[in-house]
């Protein structure tokens, strides 16, 4: 396997009962890639993303992360998940913990990072997203945009190699979308490998180096933002773009 391929899927399939959501997806995601996944609702883009760290167990095919086959039941999945940060549409912060504890829990528990070190790192990252003063707040005291920025920081505190974003701005009020996208842009500029399921075509166009279009459980198009938005090849993508742009 090439050295710079971080995630590789081979014939990835996922069915729920008799509904086939993913019908065989092959893709290589390389280090430093910012891949935006677009597609109509029900096209399987969230399922695809959730399969990458096996939050959804694929029903066929295989997934490799840094060369290790995650779909092999013998692999230590928890260890690999530590290197794959994930950001959810609904934030999923831990409501019973302060922001600081949300950020330090996993590094301290799983990577045995000393408390002072974990807190220093968490506070530094919080400051970078402009939330240094909210360390002792609880999640419910934050706005949606703030929660999502904290959720991004929570994933970053584990020092992941890849970040997976599942429609990170879809649950936000419109005026809060920008602040979250800004954090993601900065992350992309720093060279983070990112896979982003999104409806923000502007973000995809501006930040992604690669856009994939899922249609009916298949990888219908795969190209640079210029190719996807400028010269769509398939009729389905043309129709989709005409609706969302």
């Amino acid at each position, binding site marked *: 396997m090439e050295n710079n391929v971080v995630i590789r899927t081979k014939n990835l399939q996922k069915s729920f009962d008799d509904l086939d959501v993913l019908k065989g997806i092959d893709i290589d995601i390389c280090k430093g890639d910012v891949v935006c996944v677009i597609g109509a609702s029900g096209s399987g883009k969230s399922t695809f993303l959730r399969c990458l*760290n096996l*939050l959804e167990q694929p029903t066929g095919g295989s997934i490799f992360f840094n060369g290790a086959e995650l779909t092999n039941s013998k692999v230590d999945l*928890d*260890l*690999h*998940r*530590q290197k*794959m*940060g*994930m950001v*959810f549409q*609904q934030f*999923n*912060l*831990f*409501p*019973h*913990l*302060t922001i600081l504890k949300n950020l330090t*829990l*996993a590094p301290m*528990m*799983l990577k045995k990072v000393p408390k002072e070190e974990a807190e220093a790192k968490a506070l530094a990252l919080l400051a970078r997203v402009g939330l240094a003063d909210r360390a002792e*707040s*609880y*999640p*419910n*005291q934050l706005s949606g945009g703030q929660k999502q920025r904290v*959720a991004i920081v*929570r*994933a970053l505190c*584990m020092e992941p190699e890849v970040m*997976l974003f599942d429609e990170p701005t879809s649950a936000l009020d419109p005026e809060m979308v920008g602040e979250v996208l800004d954090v993601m842009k900065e992350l992309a500029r720093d060279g983070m490998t990112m896979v982003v399921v999104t409806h923000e075509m502007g973000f995809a166009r501006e930040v992604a180096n690669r856009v994939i279009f899922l249609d009916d459980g298949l990888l219908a198009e795969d190209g640079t933002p210029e190719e996807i938005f400028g010269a769509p090849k398939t009729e389905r993508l043309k129709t989709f773009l005409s609706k969302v742009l």
Partner: protein
Amino acid sequence: MSWFDKLQQTFIEGDRYMWLVEGLINTLIITLGALIIGVLIGTLIAITKYFCEGNKKLRILNWLCDLYTTVIRGIPITVLLLMFFYIVLVSADGVIVAIVAFGINSGAYMAELIRSGINAVDKGQMEAARSLGMSKGQAMAKIIFPQAIKNILPAIGNECIALLKETSVAGYVAIVDITRAATNIRNKTFDAVNPIILLALIYLVLVVGMTKLLAILERRLRKSDGK
């Protein structure tokens, strides 16, 4: 005879108020012991059932948990107490028998309570914890269970109150709890009214006290809701 003389005769003569004190102590010991056993069993069953879900290998374990809750919830506590006293723990001290019987009974109800609390925690919480690399067990211990307990605290309070009052049937197997102590005083003095009223008042005070304690606990746990 004035009412005060009557009280004097019923409770003070022969230091009979001490019967009530001793009965009260037994009632509290049984309630507390049963509560601890109940919470432990309930937690164990609820978590076992959670991990059994969707795991075919653990189907037998799941079935055993269901059997336990079905059997225990299907037998009246008085009958259960008699079974433990005369069949299961024949030579054990009465209070121990009561603690075990009430604990095992309470465990079945606690299990259902805690399970509903666990199920009420948003699925995204487990997903977020797993996505960070936590195992299912770690996520349960640090993320799911603390939230579940907070959700069901009022219901657990109800179960505590029900448990305290249920222990009043402990006298069936010759345990001198406070109800039995009041009965003994009545039999001795032929004064039926005052021991029963005092008994009712003592239970009432205990329940009000428990309610207050729970309210304080709840308020502390609610702190993180940030409202």
